[in-house]
């Protein structure tokens, strides 16, 4: 076979002989060096990862710049905002030990609450010129910045580790995840614009629905837990307790604690709890689609969900849930028309549920779950 190839080369000019020879060597290298093709593949994947990592770094810098600018606008000139911000972005939270899970929800709640309070205090101290509403939104902005920075660090870790150890399986797994990771990073970048300007985001649809529901109605409004308010009103002979995060600052409030307090003060009069929240849609599903179910529609750490389920079970109160489908990007970027349009449909559904499921004279708790950034209290 080898002679054949050389013979063909010999019949033609020197250049094609050379080309044939290079081909031959290349072919031989695949036979004599079994890892050769893998080597080529590895370097190809690493190059692809490097390109994406580079884009992630640009996204990370972009979000950091935006956060820094927003902070500088609200801080005194003698404060080293850049340094303080870096400290916040690098800070961490350690989840509680789960070896003995008894009481872990309350430990988690304690840690998360401490974290939130400390974070907000730090932001308020750095941005001393910002009002409390702005402080909440700026706190959200730092969280976005932290999220993007974590993604960048995570990808960089696996890229460098894979490169150093020449581990194709490691970088291959990373490469497979990259499309979704890039999409999330880009969503975070868009979210940083929204929070920097305090615009309502898709996740806030729950809060928006209840704000629209009570708008223009006679009611009593008070704070029930930190950043959590309740509107008390009468509708068709039933008492409605409508709970949401207090806007227009960016916060999700403490709906779990709020609902527990409401049930404790209302006693056995509460006959239904309805939670309204944005939920992740599956690929191919339509954004803004409204679906109904049972249970507690609420995301986050799980503390609020646990508390509501626990008290509802003890008091035998049915749990109804209404979910609005959104993608992860839609949930953290400015609200879209398709999602806003769902609000009126949900209000009709809630009114229908109240009339059908609960007798006159009873109390219903309706919780609009989600971030209240850019959604004022009516």
């Amino acid at each position, binding site marked *: 076979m080898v002679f054949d190839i050389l013979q063909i080369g010999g019949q033609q000019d020197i250049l094609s002989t050379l080309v044939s020879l290079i081909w031959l060597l290349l072919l031989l290298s695949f036979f004599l060096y079994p890892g050769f093709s893998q080597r080529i593949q590895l370097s190809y994947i690493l190059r692809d990862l490097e390109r994406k990592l580079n884009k992630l770094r640009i996204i990370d810098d972009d979000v950091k710049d935006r956060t820094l600018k927003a902070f500088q606008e609200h801080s005194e000139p003698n404060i080293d905002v850049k340094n303080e911000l870096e400290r916040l972005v690098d800070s961490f939270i350690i989840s509680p030990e789960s070896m003995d899970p008894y009481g872990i929800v309350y430990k988690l709640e304690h840690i998360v609450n401490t974290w939130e309070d400390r974070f907000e205090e730090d932001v308020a101290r750095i941005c001393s010129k910002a009002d409390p509403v702005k402080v909440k939104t700026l706190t959200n902005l730092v969280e976005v910045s932290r999220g993007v920075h974590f993604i960048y660090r995570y990808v960089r870790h696996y890229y460098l580790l894979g490169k150093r150890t020449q581990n194709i399986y490691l970088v291959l797994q990373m490469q497979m995840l990259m499309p979704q990771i890039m999409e999330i990073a*880009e969503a975070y970048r*868009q979210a940083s614009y929204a929070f920097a300007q305090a*615009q309502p985001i898709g996740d806030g649809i729950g809060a928006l629905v209840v704000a629209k529901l009570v*708008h223009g109605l006679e009611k009593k409004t008070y704070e029930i837990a930190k950043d959590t308010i309740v509107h008390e009103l009468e509708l068709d002979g039933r008492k409605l307790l409508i709970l949401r995060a207090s806007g*227009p600052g960016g916060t999700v409030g403490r709906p779990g604690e709020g609902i527990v307090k409401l049930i404790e003060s209302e006693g056995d009069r509460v006959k239904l709890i309805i939670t309204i929240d944005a939920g992740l849609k599956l690929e191919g599903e339509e954004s803004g689609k409204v679906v109904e179910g049972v249970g507690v529609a609420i995301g986050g750490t799980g503390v609020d969900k646990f508390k509501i389920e626990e008290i509802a079970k003890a008091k035998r109160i049915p749990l109804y849930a209404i979910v609005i489908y959104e993608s992860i990007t839609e949930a953290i970027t*400015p*609200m*879209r028309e398709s999602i806003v349009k769902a609000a009126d449909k949900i209000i009709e559904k809630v009114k229908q549920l109240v009339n059908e499921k609960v007798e006159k004279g009873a109390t219903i708790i309706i919780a609009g779950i989600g971030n209240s950034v850019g959604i004022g209290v009516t």
Partner: protein
Amino acid sequence: MFPQKPQLNRFIQPLTHLTCFSCNTENSRPFKDGDYVFKEVEEKCPKCGSTKMLITGIYIEERQLKERER
């Protein structure tokens, strides 16, 4: 060989939708800093000239999304 600078997506500014207190006319304009849903603003109604409007929505319209895709 220099790595080319990757292109980042443009951010679409949402529109602020306002409703007039006296004639209920709805109109929209680009989002301005300080806007939030259910804020009462002193802006002139394009129809009746009243100066009290309520912000009833802040969102990205479908046509804005379509424009970007193009």
